[in-house]
């Protein structure tokens, strides 16, 4: 598994592999949280999910992960191997709820996730090298021996990002990954994520309220409130009259024109 993960990290995004959501919906109890979402997400794309609180953004991620049941279909189209399958999903939570007193080192977490060899026996040098290599992608190799509870918020999120990248997923889901992190940590995190597109064969879905960062880094923005309200480049979505009228409060003052990327990305693969 380790070797294939490393091999995949070296293969660049082809831009053709695609995760498809068709008539995707989530109903919990009698409450319909999401309905009729149709999406194509291509590899090599950073898609930002924005919308008001309670719009169902986190629920959409959880449904893709399989945490909550959904209607409709979720398929991954693998161009290289010419078949469809369930996508391999990596996940970076908003805030990892864990016990900060637990004696679990970063290396423990990696080895537990990647091998069946029980980690109370210690680690092989191979496991150590492998974890260091993946951590270096997120500039966190110096954290290898640290205890999880001793990491800062930004460090922990980078470690979780590295963990989600190994084995390399088809789809990387991030739920407000840096909401509690200082501005330097946020900047670093977004730069790393933005670079992943060039080096990894995966698509990224990011939930964020940080519209400045979204405008700067995202290829595509999905505005969600119960269903897909609007989709396009950051500039298109944030200047859409409907969005301004109905949801102006969501991003009022949050977006700065000079931070908006020029309209360099066309809307590709929109809808089914």
């Amino acid at each position: 598994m380790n070797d294939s993960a490393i091999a995949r990290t070296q293969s660049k995004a082809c831009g053709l592999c695609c995760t498809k959501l068709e008539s995707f919906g989530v109903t919990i109890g009698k409450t319909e949280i999401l309905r009729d979402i149709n999406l194509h997400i291509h590899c090599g794309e950073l898609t930002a999910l924005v919308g008001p609180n309670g719009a169902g953004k986190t629920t959409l991620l959880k449904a893709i992960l399989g945490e909550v049941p959904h209607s409709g279909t979720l398929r991954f189209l693998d161009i290289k191997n010419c078949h469809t399958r369930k996508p391999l999903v990596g996940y970076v939570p908003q805030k990892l709820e864990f016990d900060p007193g637990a004696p679990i080192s970063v290396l423990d977490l990696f080895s537990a996730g990647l091998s069946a060899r029980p980690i109370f026996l210690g680690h092989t040098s191979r496991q150590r090298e492998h974890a260091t290599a993946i951590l270096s992608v997120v500039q966190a190799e110096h954290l290898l021996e640290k205890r999880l509870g001793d990491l800062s918020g930004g460090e922990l999120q980078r470690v979780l990002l590295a963990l989600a990248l190994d084995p390399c997923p088809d789809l990387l889901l991030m739920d407000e990954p840096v909401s509690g992190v200082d501005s330097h940590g946020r900047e670093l995190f977004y730069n790393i994520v933005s670079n992943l597109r060039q080096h990894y064969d995966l698509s990224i879905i990011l939930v964020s309220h940080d519209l400045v960062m979204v405008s700067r880094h995202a290829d595509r923005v999905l505005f969600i409130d119960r269903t897909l309200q609007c989709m396009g480049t950051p500039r298109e979505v944030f200047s859409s009259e409907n969005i301004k009228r109905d949801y102006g409060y969501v991003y009022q003052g949050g977006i700065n024109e000079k931070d908006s990327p020029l309209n360099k990305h066309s809307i590709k693969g929109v809808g089914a």
Partner: protein
Amino acid sequence: MESWYFIIDHLLPFAWTHHTFMKNALLAVLLVGPMFGIMGTMVVNNKMAFYSDTIGHSALTGIAIGILLGFQDPLWIMVIFSIFLAVAISLLKYYTTASIDTVIGAVSATMVALGIVILSRGGGFARFSRFLIGDLLSITPREIYLLIFAFAVIVVLWTAMFNKFLLLSVNPILARSRGISVDLVETLFCIIIAVIVTISIQWVGILIINSFLILPAAAARNVSINMRDYHVISVLITLISGIMGLLLSYYWSTATGATIALVAAAFYLLTLLLKPRFA
């Protein structure tokens, strides 16, 4: 067993090892100790101290059911009952919105009350007080074979499942995103704890069984920064406090289980003082 007696007679030619019951008890301590040492680390990580305590206390009802059904040795009924309880608690956790400590507290109170009501029928509860305190010195060679078997099962299960248990203990959503069937692994863990606690109860005692599980792991946690240290220290503490407790109880004529628990508690206090160095 003969070879064990032979080894002890030659390696430890002391007054206390002259008694066969002490040789048996020593072997039992060497088996129960590491088993509880490695299980305890995960119980503490998962914040399941209250759960394991409940399983221990609920053994009263297991005994009562065994007696009602007319078994002289209620062990198997107790084990089956504990598995039933472990599954029931897992299901309750899944299907109710009440917080988990409330659910477990309710189950614990009900089971203890039910057990006492059945066992005290006709005023005969005193007969069962040995289950409350436990008697390690009464362990028979046949029961030691059972412990060896349990020990082997734990080693196999922990080798196969430990990393899954660990990821689950860090965060269930993270575990699920890495392809672990969370509910299944969690229920399996609850069942293992329930079975091992239940078969150890008659030697350790309902009142203190949980201290065997919790104290060494809690002590080890204070002075370790990774999983290997955590386990090595936890097993060492169970072994040292087991042997020291056994000897002290022999010379003081006290209940063995409780004496061992006291030594483990001393280790806990000691590591609590050392903790700032490891924080």
